[in-house]
Structures are given as structure tokens and as C-alpha cells.
């Protein structure tokens, strides 16, 4: 999976839980929880969406790695065997 592909999938997952969010405006290195109105329930749904989309298991200890958009992309590309 190329980083760009991963990025668009992450953004899709984000907008599915925060529909009012505008993907273009999301800053890649700023904490997502600060940019978007996401609580722990939203974040769990976000993690589950990534789990479903990428087929990867995300333990709670890895949540900090998913704090930003770039973090998510790196995390998902690294753990994706096909990348």
C-alpha cells in the first residue's frame, strides 16, 4: 500500500466519524483530537475503521502513534506486510 493510498483511506475513516471535518484542512502533524471534535468513542470507532480497512490489529498502547495524520500513515504503512 503506497503512503498516498494509505493517507486517503485514513482521511476517509476520519470523515466517517467526523462528517463535518474537511479533509483538505486537516494538518498532517497536528494532533487529530485538537483539530477535530473527537472523543474516546469516536477514536475507538476510528481505530476500528482502520482495523477493518487495513486488516491490521491496533493495541491500545499504539494509540499515541495514531495521534496525527502522518503518524497514522507511517504506522499503517510499516505494519502492512504488502507495502
Amino acid at each position, binding site marked *: 500500500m503506497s503512503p498516498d493510498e494509505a493517507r486517503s483511506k485514513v482521511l476517509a475513516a476520519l470523515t466517517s466519524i467526523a462528517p463535518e471535518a474537511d479533509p483538505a*484542512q486537516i494538518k498532517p502533524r497536528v494532533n487529530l483530537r485538537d*483539530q477535530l*471534535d473527537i472523543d*474516546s468513542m469516536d477514536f475507538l470507532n476510528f481505530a476500528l475503521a482502520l482495523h477493518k480497512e487495513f486488516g491490521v*490489529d491496533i493495541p*491500545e498502547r499504539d494509540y499515541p502513534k495514531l495521534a496525527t495524520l502522518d503518524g497514522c500513515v507511517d504506522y499503517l504503512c510499516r505494519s502492512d506486510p504488502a507495502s
Partner: protein
Amino acid sequence: MADFVMPSLGADMEAGTLVAWHKNAGQAVRRGDIIAEVETDKGIIDIEVFTSGILEQILVPVGEKVPVGTLLARIREEGQTAEEKVAAPAISVDREPPKAPAALPAVAAEKIAGPAASSTSGDVTRLPMSPSARRLARELGVDPHTVPGTGPGSAITREDIQRAAAASTAKTPPSVSQPSVPKPQPPSADQASRMRAAIAAAMARSKREIPHYYLQTTIDFHAAETWLAEENLKRPMTERLLYGVLLLKAVALALQEVPDLNAVWEGDRVQVKEAVHLGVAISVRGGGLIAPALHNATEKNIDQLMREFRDLVRRARSGGLRSSELTDPTITVTSLGEQGVEAVYGIIYPPQVALVGFGKIVTRPWSVNNAIVPRSVITATLSADHRVSDGHRGGLFLSAVDRLLQEPDKL
């Protein structure tokens, strides 16, 4: 090798029963010969063969009923005339006809489009509103003019009325602070003002009528936190738990010890309720708050509560709540920890008599076995109606919540 199958003789023929073979294995057959007879609903029908050759093998004996298309025999193609070779159809498995697309084309330019926007009707005060929403508004005492419509052409729907009804009984603690992230689609101006008007009306009424008293305690959250982390490791992601659900269960069980906080005003009398329906305060995207009920919280285990909690949040944010969920919580729990607030001094939702608040989890120095260690702690608060209970009862309740959270495995 050519297949001889049970032929399809008509749309309503599904199967046929072999009543006779006119040829045996090894015998020669010619295209057009009748080589079998089949019993159908309409009677016995002669079945012809379309290939010439040697009847290699009969696979279905006389007397057996088989569906159309079943292989009946194999024919080794031999002695075919030149014509028959040419005539053998190159029958590919035909591509299926295209499926009907979701929406068939309207035959003509759309003439059924509704009339120009209702504004042409000049009736500015006229609200586009479904008849059933109109009747529900009357039943729940909601003034439609204060309700933002989310239906087609911003028509007001049943859900809008339900949301307004719930919001009008809901309290949002004054200190609600939403992260200041610019929202690309703020609720339309009049929608937000209507919801705000409904909330304002409820707040004022609650403050006017209910003599609140407030209690607070700080709870060691270490045991709950570690149990939760271990528990989530054992579970697949889809069954992962959030700490909020532990708080909800603890409150539910504590109410069994102090039932008088689980009550509602009915007219001028307080009615203690058997069942514990926890109103869970949920922020609605784009502003506004709603507190639908998690029914019978005491009877459900942690997993069930988690599933219902997730479903409730999902439906609250997508407008799919049932009116019963909005009208019958017996107490409300609000948790604003994630908004960075340590303590919540909320206002009770009439007709309830209590509200429980939780702040954020913080690390504090804490004495454990006479040693000071860094510890995760959380602040729990209680707002209660002094006409119904007094500080002593409130205190018992909060200490019960504290005690229950020290043994998370028993929740």
C-alpha cells in the same frame, strides 16, 4: 464428449422424472432421436438428443426426479455428418443480461418535482412539517417554530421534535467548552438558535425550581485502569471497552445502595424508580447535547453496556433515537474528562432528582500503603435535589461509586 442434460421446456418447469430410456449405453444415437421420456407436471414428454454419436454412459436411472440442467448421460461424438459438426453451436456460457440499475430512468423530464420552494406560497410563517411530526409536537409540548428541521427542504421531522423535546429537558453545565476547532458546517443559524432556545428554557426552569446541592470526591482509578488495559489485550478490537462504561456500571450499582437518587418527579410527588435508566449525556456533532437513556443498566454486564453505549452514541449523532429513550432516564451521568475538565457541577435534568459528573483522569501524588506514589485519579461529583435527598445520602452514594471502582472485575 457431449453432455445430455435434463432440458428446460418452459419457464415453469423446474424438474422432471425419468420414465424411460429409449437407448442403452454403447448404442449409437443420431441428432433428433428421441432417447428418453420425462414425466413433467403436464404429462410425459419425449426428449430428443441434439448430438450424434455413441451413448457412452447413462447417469440418471429411470424413476429418478432431477432438476432441469442435471447431467443425464454422456455421448461420445462420432459419425457426425459434416453439417452437424458445423451446426454444433459454439455456445459460450452467455453473459448475464445487465441487472436493473438502482433507479430506472423516469420516462420523461421530471415533471413531478414539487412546486417551487414553499417561499412562493408567500406564507412565511408556514412551516414545512409532516403531519405526524405536527401531532408529536403537540403531544410533547414542543413549539415547532423553535425546532431546526433536518427533513427535505429543511422540513421538521419526528426526530427533530424528539431531539427538541429531549434537549428542552436536558441540562448542559454552564462550563461546557467545546474545542475551538472551526466547524466547516455549523448548524444553520436558525437550527442552532432553536436548540439553544430549547436548552435555555430547560436550564432556567431547573434552576428556578430545584434547590441543588453539590458534592465532590476524588477516586483512585489505578485498579480500574490496569484491569481495563489487561482486559482489552485479551479481547478482539471489536469488543474493546472504554473506561466510561465502568463509570456507568459503578453509578448503576451504587444507586441500588442509595435508591432515593434514582427517582423522578411526577406532578408534585417524587417517585423512586425500580429500574435504573441512565441518561448518558452525549454531545451532538455541530453543537447541542442530548441525554438518551441506557435502560436497566443494573441488569446488564459490562459487554452489553458497552455495546448499547456505542449504539446509543451512534444513533444520537445520526438522529435515530426512539422517543422512549429520550423521555425516561431516571438519572443522568455526564463525563467531560475528555474536554480537559477536572470537575463538573452540573444542573439536574427535570424531572430527575440527581446528576453525576466525572472529570478527566489525572496523575496525582497518592498515599498507598503509607508511601506516596504517582496515581491515576478521577473526580466524581453529584448534583442533587435537596427537596428529595440530603448531603448524607449523596455522600454514601459517591463513596459507593468509589468502592465499586476499586474492584473493576466485579462490575
